[in-house]
């Protein structure tokens, strides 16, 4: 169990490429923290710097208050699970889990104790004598995890460990990892490009882009209060709808003009947007905050009307795709909706849930 601290960490390669820029983060003991972002955003590089597999060009990494910059990977007391795991095909599950310890010349009786303990945690005890080919995908993944657990490390580093699994297995393994965190009670740093994985697993999420931290927050805060357009668009599926809007101030009333409709902002949002009078901003609204339900329409302070282009039934919900001023939008509505493709539909806009962003800096004006 350990706390980590990264202070002004940079990764620059000799060819000038900067993969990570001014990375600052404190990770508490037993925290499950997620690094999320599109590919090439520097999340894996940061993880590899923590592991010691990449040198830190500038800045300091501390584990439990001790500077680790020049400590060899094997001496950092960490264990890793990466995307491309392979099980040793001719070895049993027991030997697969013990192999790393044997390489490190750990005494036999200790290895036995560690392997059996890890097998118990992962519910693999019955499978210890099996060879990899006799295991299911999920069991194999658990063996790969077991190889990390047997080290009894202070920190677990996981780099997209589920990305090679099919969708169903991924969901199953996701909950297993969450349970594992509770059982082990250790610090986990988990890298993924999948925002659903990030939202469901992490106690805190670090959103990265182009080597720079965009926002660090709890999943709920990231979803509700994104700091910029990128975070707002990245977190949530389907992603937030964005549409250009012109700010119109009339006395104390602040409205966003979208496709000829005035959407009057509530007082809580109006003050922040008021200085943008006459300027174009970006309005963001999540699909679930657009509704075609009769009750919502009755209570709505603003509406948007458009023709439905596509209707997707997902069982518990329906996605309606439509355009507003040539901008594609999605609404997540009740499955009992009567809206069909080609219908002209009026959508209630939940004005309390509108986000407004500066078009130039892409930073949030109000959430």
């Amino acid at each position, binding site marked *: 169990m350990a706390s980590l601290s990264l202070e002004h960490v940079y990764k*620059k390669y000799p060819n000038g490429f900067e993969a990570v820029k001014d990375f600052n983060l404190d990770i508490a003991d037993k925290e499950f923290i997620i690094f999320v972002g599109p590919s090439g955003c520097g999340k894996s590089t940061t993880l590899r710097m923590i592991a010691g597999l*990449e040198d830190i060009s500038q800045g300091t990494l501390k584990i439990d208050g001790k500077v680790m910059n020049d400590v060899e990977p094997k001496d950092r007391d960490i264990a*890793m699970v*990466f995307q*491309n*795991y*392979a099980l040793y095909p001719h070895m049993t599950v027991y030997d697969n889990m013990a192999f790393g310890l044997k390489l490190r010349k750990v005494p036999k009786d200790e290895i036995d104790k560690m392997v059996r303990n890890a097998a118990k945690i992962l519910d693999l005890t019955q499978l210890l004598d099996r060879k990899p080919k006799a295991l299911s995908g999920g069991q194999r993944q658990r063996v790969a995890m077991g190889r990390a657990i047997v080290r009894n490390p202070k920190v677990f580093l996981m780099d997209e460990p589920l990305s090679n699994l099919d969708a169903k297995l991924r969901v199953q393994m996701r909950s297993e990892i969450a349970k594992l965190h509770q059982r082990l009670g250790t610090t986990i740093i988990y890298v993924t490009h999948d925002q659903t994985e990030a939202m469901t697993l992490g106690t805190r999420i670090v959103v990265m882009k182009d080597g720079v931290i965009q926002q660090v927050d709890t999943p709920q805060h990231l979803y509700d209060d994104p700091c910029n357009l990128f975070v707002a668009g990245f977190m949530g599926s389907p992603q937030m709808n964005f549409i250009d809007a012109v700010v119109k101030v009339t006395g104390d009333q602040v409205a966003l003009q979208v496709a000829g409709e005035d959407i009057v902002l509530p007082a809580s949002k109006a003050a922040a947007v008021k200085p943008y009078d006459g300027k174009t901003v970006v309005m963001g609204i999540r699909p679930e905050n657009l509704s075609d339900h009769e009750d919502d329409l009755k209570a709505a302070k603003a509406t948007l009307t458009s023709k439905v282009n596509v209707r997707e039934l997902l069982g518990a919900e329906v996605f309606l795709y439509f355009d507003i001023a040539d901008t594609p939008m999605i609404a997540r509505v009740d499955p009992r909706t009567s809206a069909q493709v080609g219908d002209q539909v009026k959508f209630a806009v939940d004005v309390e849930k509108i986000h407004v962003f500066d078009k130039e*800096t892409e930073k949030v004006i109000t959430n």
Partner: protein
Amino acid sequence: MVSAQIVKTCLEELTSISKVEFCVQDPSGALFSMTGGAEMTQNDVVASFASSSVDSQIMGNKYLLKIQEEDETVYILTAIGTGDYTLMIAKIAVSELRNLMTAYREKYDRNNFFQNLLLDNLLLVDIHNRARKLHINFAVPRAIILAEIESESDASASDLLASIFTTHNGDYLTEVDENSVIIIKAVENENAYDQVQESAQIAADMLNTEAMLKVRVAYGTIVSDLKNISKSYKEARMAMDVGKIFYAERRVISYNELGIGRLIYQLPSNLCNVFIQEVFGENIPYDLDNETLSTINTFFENNLNVSETSRKLFIHRNTLVYRIEKLQKSTGLDIRVFDDALKFKIALMVMNYLKYLENKDY
């Protein structure tokens, strides 16, 4: 040659099952290996038995048996005990040790064969003959994956890789220097680059996670038969070098994806120097500071777009323009203009290459 320790382990296991103690001596009587409760046979007795024509001999409470390799007596096994049971166990021990030696010789020979093959030390006819003798399929598509350990040399790397890339699957491992392990990877067909890429990724990830080693992996093209393996090896070596110079951020690099780095790598240094002189004249920017380098790279990454670059760098547009103009003053190149940007980009790569050559010379 199989080590005394391995022979001892094998005999001790047999002793723990059968309760028969063993001693192995060479034909002159020198001790090679023995179990805890055994005793050596006198040297002259061993030597005389070794030179005799019989295969086994009883001497008091001992059985002496010959261990032969290709009709040559290489060791004498002494089994302590009497009766048919001891003789049977002694024969099992001889059989075990002979198989162990054959397996080791084959492994050693294969290793030697692949090393010579990779370094172009074999004639075509020898490749055919030796491959047949070593039970290596000649016409199997293969690619070379080269794993270079960045930290100090560690035997665990080859142990680990040998446990993943097994002979059973047609893969072989060898080493030609201290810091790298070579995987001769058999693939399904000559276009199976996904398979090679996946194997290379697995090698890198496993060395990282299991052995906790810093590693860089490169691979060559797939060749159709054994005689062209050295070509794939040379390509992998080149990919490793080019990767280090131009694509340091990549951990796995393919010979097929070296881009412009491949061209520059093949240029003679005098030509590179002439090019740098031509581009920069007397104002060669040998050591650009990090800020300038970062500015230039971000500007290139954002397709020479000033607004986008300034946003990415969190600086004002005018600051970016100032930096670009400052660079123009010192180098004569305005990187906002495509031709100059292209020249600058290539010149930066050429300078990286020259730096690499300089360091290599030392």
